[in-house]
C-alpha cells in the first residue's frame, strides 16, 4: 500500500498545471462541506489524508487504474484500425513488391529482389504515368488553390446573401467523383458537348477533349478543380476571419490599397493554412484515380488509348487487377510512397526556410 500511496502523492503533485490542481482541491473541499458521504470523496485526496481504509484501497486503485488506463482505451480503436488496415498493409506492400505475386494468391509468392522495380524503370508506360500524375497534379491544384484564395477574399467582404454563396460554392463537394466525372464527360464531349459548342462561338473548333493529351488532362483536372475549389475557399475564409482587424486598420492608415492589404496582410497571416491545403491537395493529386478512370469510359484503366492521362494510381490498378501482377503493383505503390515522402520533405524545407525568412 505504501508505494501506491507515495505514487499517488507524487501523481497529485505532478500535474504541470497548478490551476487545474487548485480547482480540484477547491471543489473537493466544497464537496465535503456539503456533507456528502465520504465514499463519494475523491480517491486521491483520501489517500493524501492517510486514510487507506479497506474500501478506499480498492477504490483508490480502481480510480488510479481508471485515470491511467482509460486514455489508452479511448485512443485504442483508432490505433487498432490503423495498425490492421493502415500500417501493416503499408509495410507488407513493400515486402510484396520484392516478390512475384499473382492476383488471387494469398501469400507473398516467390522472391524476385528488385526485379519489379527494374521492370518499372524499363517500362515506358510507367514513366508516362509518372509524368501524367505530375502534370495532372499541377494543373488540378495550382489553379484550384489560387481561385479558392480569391473566392475566400471575396466572401470575406460584407455581402448580401453570403450564406447562400458559401453553400452554393460548396455544393460540388457533395457530388461524388463518379457522378461528376460522368457529367463532365458529357460536357466535354468533342462532338456534341456543350463546352465545344460554347468555344465554337469564339471561333475555336473541334478540340479533341478525349484523345489529345493536354485537352484531356485539362478536362480531367477541371473535374477535380470543380469539386474542391469551394471547399478550400471555405477553409481559407475561416483562416482569414481569424486575422486581427487592427492589422488591416494599420495597413489602411499606411495608405495600402485593398489589393495591397490582401497581398501583404491576408496572405502572410494565413500562411499556415495555405501550407496545409497545399499538402492536402498534393496528396490528393498523387492518388487521382476515379476521375481519369471514369473519364475514359469504356477504355478502362489504361487512361486513354495512348495512356495519355493514365495516372500512377490507374497504372497500379492496371498492373494489379487487369494484368494480375500484384507484385508489380506493389512496386508502383511504393514508388508512390517515395514520391509522397519526397514531396513532404520539400514542403518541410520550404516551410523551414520561410520561417527563417520571417525571423520566427
Amino acid at each position, binding site marked *: 500500500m505504501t508505494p501506491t500511496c507515495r505514487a499517488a502523492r507524487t501523481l497529485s503533485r505532478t500535474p504541470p498545471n497548478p490551476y487545474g490542481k487548485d480547482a480540484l482541491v477547491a471543489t473537493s473541499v466544497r464537496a465535503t462541506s456539503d456533507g456528502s458521504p465520504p465514499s463519494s470523496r475523491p480517491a486521491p485526496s483520501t489517500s493524501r489524508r492517510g486514510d487507506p481504509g479497506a474500501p478506499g484501497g480498492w477504490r483508490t486503485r480502481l480510480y488510479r487504474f481508471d485515470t491511467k488506463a482509460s486514455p489508452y482505451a479511448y485512443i485504442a480503436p483508432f490505433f487498432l484500425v490503423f495498425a490492421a488496415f493502415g500500417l501493416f498493409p503499408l509495410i507488407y506492400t513493400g515486402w510484396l513488391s520484392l516478390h512475384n505475386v499473382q492476383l488471387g494468391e494469398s501469400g507473398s509468392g516467390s522472391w524476385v529482389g528488385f526485379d519489379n522495380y527494374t521492370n518499372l524503370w524499363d517500362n515506358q508506360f510507367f514513366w508516362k504515368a509518372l509524368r501524367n500524375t505530375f502534370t495532372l497534379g499541377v494543373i488540378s491544384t495550382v489553379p484550384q488553390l489560387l481561385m479558392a484564395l480569391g473566392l475566400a477574399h471575396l466572401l470575406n467582404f460584407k455581402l448580401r446573401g453570403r450564406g447562400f454563396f458559401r453553400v452554393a460554392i460548396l455544393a460540388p463537394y457533395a457530388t461524388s467523383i463518379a457522378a461528376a466525372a460522368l*457529367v463532365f464527360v458529357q460536357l466535354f464531349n468533342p462532338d456534341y458537348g456543350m463546352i465545344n459548342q460554347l468555344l465554337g462561338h469564339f471561333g475555336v473548333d473541334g478540340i479533341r477533349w478525349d484523345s489529345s493529351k493536354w485537352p484531356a488532362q485539362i478536362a480531367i483536372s477541371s473535374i477535380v478543380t470543380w469539386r474542391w475549389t469551394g471547399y478550400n475557399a471555405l477553409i481559407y475564409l475561416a483562416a482569414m476571419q481569424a486575422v486581427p482587424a487592427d492589422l488591416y486598420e494599420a495597413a489602411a492608415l499606411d495608405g495600402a490599397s485593398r489589393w495591397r492589404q490582401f497581398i501583404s496582410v491576408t496572405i502572410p497571416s494565413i500562411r499556415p493554412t495555405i501550407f496545409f491545403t497545399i499538402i492536402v491537395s498534393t496528396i490528393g493529386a498523387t492518388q487521382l484515380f476515379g476521375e481519369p478512370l471514369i473519364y475514359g469510359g469504356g477504355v478502362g484503366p489504361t487512361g486513354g488509348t495512348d495512356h495519355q492521362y493514365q495516372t500512377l494510381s490507374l497504372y497500379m490498378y492496371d498492373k494489379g487487377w487487369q494484368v494480375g501482377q*500484384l507484385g508489380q503493383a506493389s512496386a508502383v*505503390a511504393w514508388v508512390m510512397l517515395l514520391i509522397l515522402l519526397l514531396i513532404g520533405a520539400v514542403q518541410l524545407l520550404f516551410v523551414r526556410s520561410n520561417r527563417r525568412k520571417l525571423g520566427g
Partner: protein
Amino acid sequence: MAQLTEPVRSSGARHSSAAPRRARRRLRVGGAGKQQNGGPIAYAFLIIATLVSLFPLYWTVVAASHTDTDIVTPPTPLLPGSHLIDNLKIVWDQVDMTTALINSTIVAGTVAFSTVLFATLAGFAFAKLEFRGRNALLTVVVATMTVPPQLTVIPLYQIITKAGWVGHLQSVILPSLVAAFGVFFMRQFLAEALPIELVEAARVDGAHSLRIIWHVVFPIARPAMAVLGMLVFVQSWNDFFWPFIALSQQNPTVQVALAGVGAGNHSIDHAVVVCAALVSTLPLLLVFAVLGRQIVSGITAGAVKS
C-alpha cells in the same frame, strides 16, 4: 450587439435556438475579420463562381430528363425535358440501384456512426486527458492522414480474399471504422469547447471516466459530432477507390454501380448514364439543401486552428 440579435429573435420562436449562435458568429466576425463592403466586382465574381458551381448540377437534371438523341444533337438542351421517369426506369433495369442505394446507406451510416463514436473518445483523450506519449501519438494520428489508400489496398485485397469478404460490405466498412481526420477534428473542437474544470469536478464527485464521457463529454461535443457525422457520411458515400476494388457489380455501392454504368460499351445511352449520376447524388444534395449552413460552419470550424 442587441440590435443585431433583436430582429433575428423576433422573427419567430422557431429560430430562437439559432439566434444566439448566429449572433455569436457575427460578433466574432465583427471583432476579428475585415468588414469592408463588397463592391459590384465582388458580386460579379461570386455570381460567376456560383453559376460555375451549380450549372453542372442543374444540367445533370436537364440531361437526365431528355433522351439520348436530344443530348447528342446540338444545340444541347438547357431546360428540363419530359423523359425523367423513362430514364429512371431504364436505370433501375440496367443496375440494381435499390441494392446500391441501400448498400451505400448501410456503409456510410455505419462508418459515420463508428467514426463519430471512436473519434469523440480519442479526441477527448487527446484534448483533455494526460497520459504518457500523448503528443507523440497525436503526431502519429496527424501523420496517418497522409497515407493514401493506394499504399494499402494490395495486402487488404489479399486479406479480404482470404477471409472471403470480396463483394461483401464488411470489406469496405471495417477499414474505415475510424479515421485520423475525425480524431483530429474532435480533438480540435474539444480542446476549446470543453472546460477542464468540468471534467475534474465530475471526477471529484466520484464519476468514473465512462460516466464522464456520457454525462460531460457527449453533451458538449454533440454539435461537433453532428457535423463530423455529416462530413464522414458524405465522404463515405462518395468513396470510390477501395469499394471499386473490393466490391462487384452484383453487390455494389452507388459509386461502384455508377462506374459500371459509365464504363459500359460504346453504344451507351448518355441520358440514362447522367440519370444514374443524378440518382446517386440526389440524397446528398437533399441533405445539403437542408443542412448546408451547418456543414459550411463545420468545415470552417475544423479549419481555423490548423
